[in-house]
């Protein structure tokens, strides 16, 4: 499998706080990689750097062999990098359909794409995530689960090669969470995307991810199969704390 993303020694500081310290990772095409770590470990900061929302203090980010370290977010999106947000960020004043239309129009460069064509394509993604019947509802009026579906549809409509899924389980009940996992798995099968999945819920990553990377205080402390990571002493300590000897 070809390498789709290569992150080399990226660092990001906010004032005196180093949120990500020299993290390196690589993702191969077609993989589902889990990214986990306790709160404040730097997972979302790392994704923000890869997507271009944050600039990188030092280090290098390559996507499909191309250096994208200094590219603006919209150019990275056109190359095939897309994401969902930990706290859903729908376009509140737009309808569900229009929100996805923006992605279908502005994402990957497509030849001969008119606004009407984009509307047609957007309905396809809404159908995929089960929101077709809500296409004329304002995005702000959707439930949390529906907003997550909309975020996925919006990300898929850009025609991505790599999607970052940021804590999709947060705030969902077990039934909704199960639906969300299935949806993401289906999107991988149907659209052939590579997934970097940020998640706290270990059970989800154990099931869905082929490889898991663990961050703690901005540093990578473990990488391997979900089973290996689950047994890793550093990971256990980062989540549960160190055992004090009497």
């Amino acid at each position, binding site marked *: 499998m070809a390498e789709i993303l290569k992150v080399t020694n990226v660092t990001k500081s906010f004032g005196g706080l180093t949120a990500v310290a020299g993290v390196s990772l690589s993702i191969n095409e077609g993989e589902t990689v889990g990214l986990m770590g306790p709160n404040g470990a730097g997972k979302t900061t790392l994704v923000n750097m890869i997507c271009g*929302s944050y600039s990188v203090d030092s280090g290098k980010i390559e996507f499909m062999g191309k250096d994208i370290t200094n590219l603006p977010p*919209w150019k990275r999106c056109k190359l095939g990098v897309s994401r969902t947000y930990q706290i859903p960020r729908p376009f*509140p004043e737009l*309808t569900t359909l*229009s*929100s996805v239309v923006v992605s279908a129009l502005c994402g*990957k460069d497509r030849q001969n794409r008119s606004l*009407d064509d984009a509307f047609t394509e957007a309905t396809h993604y809404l159908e995929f995530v089960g929101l077709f019947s809500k296409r004329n509802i304002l995005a702000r009026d959707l439930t949390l689960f529906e907003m997550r579906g909309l975020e996925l549809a919006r990300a898929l409509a850009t025609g991505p090669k790599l999607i970052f899924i940021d804590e999709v389980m947060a705030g969902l009940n077990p039934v909704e969470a199960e639906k969300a996992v299935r949806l993401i798995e289906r999107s991988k099968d149907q659209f052939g995307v590579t997934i970097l999945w940020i998640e706290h819920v270990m059970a989800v990553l154990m099931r869905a991810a082929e490889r898991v990377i663990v961050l703690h205080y901005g540093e990578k402390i473990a990488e391997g199969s979900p089973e290996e990571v689950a047994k890793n002493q550093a990971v256990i300590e980062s989540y549960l704390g160190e055992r004090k000897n009497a």
Partner: protein
Amino acid sequence: MDLEVKRDRLVFRAMGGKWEWGIEPRYWRNPLIYISLLILAPVVVYFVYPALLATVIDANLLAAIAIPLSLMTLGTGRMNFGPQFYIGIGGYTAALLSIHFGLSPGMTLIAAALAGLVFGFAMSPLSIISGGLYYTLLTLLFPLVFLEITFIYTDLFKGDTGLAGISSLVSVGFFSLNQLVYAFISLAMMLIYLFIIDKILRSRYAVQMAAINDDEEVANGIGVNVNKTKIISFVIPAMMISIIGWFYAHYYGTFAGVTFLPLAFMLKILMVIMIGGRIQIYGCIVGGYFIAFLELLLIRTTGAMSPVLFPIILLILLLTLREGLFGLYRKRHYREYLPTLHVRR
């Protein structure tokens, strides 16, 4: 590059892009009715009460300023509080070139449009680097600074009295007939602006602007070139508004910064936008006519009290009509994809 004519639409393809325009006659009925009414209005006024033609022209021009300003607000996701700056740019460019170089209105039109374009382009980075209150304050300051400049360089701008002796746009002999021609020119300008901006707001650029309005960062993340969209939607309206300045200069034959650059004129334009329909371009026409005629009515009926009553009435309307006058109509035609103003926190 090719143009395909279908039953209900024109399809234009060029350089890998595709654009479609709906041409179904069933959608033409309402616009044709309203345009006919607008064209008939000056004629009726001319025969019934010609003195009102000045108010009709005023209304058309207010709407013609508010329409591009609505586009600027939507495209940048910020409210520009200094649209009159570009009226000043266009007006003074036309006035100076007409008086000192004897240029014809046609030539001053090109110069005013270019000046608006250049100043608009120079100011456009503001929409990228500043937001919220800072953008508001900066845009508010520019016309006031320009006004000060007209006082400092009195030799050039003639300060309070303004520049006089600008060539007329039309001269058909009779004053009221002249006014009728001006009314039609101002109406044509307004309708051209409306047509252009309506097309923009029904195009792919509208959904991009709406996305920028709602969340710039997310829009950027899904492939919208936010900076480019903002600059274009800042520069084009700036140019359009400066052309209105050109019209004012040639219409009155004089141009003084004190008439257009102070806050009072800016408030009137913003009220046209807000009372008309909160960034709805069709609402700008409703708002333009409403504000122009309300002002006239108050001056005629309440005299010295009108400067007090005018803002009070507008304030009450602002509070009670949340979606503006056009909103009363729009409530029945709801959930369009056309972007609306999202108040930024």
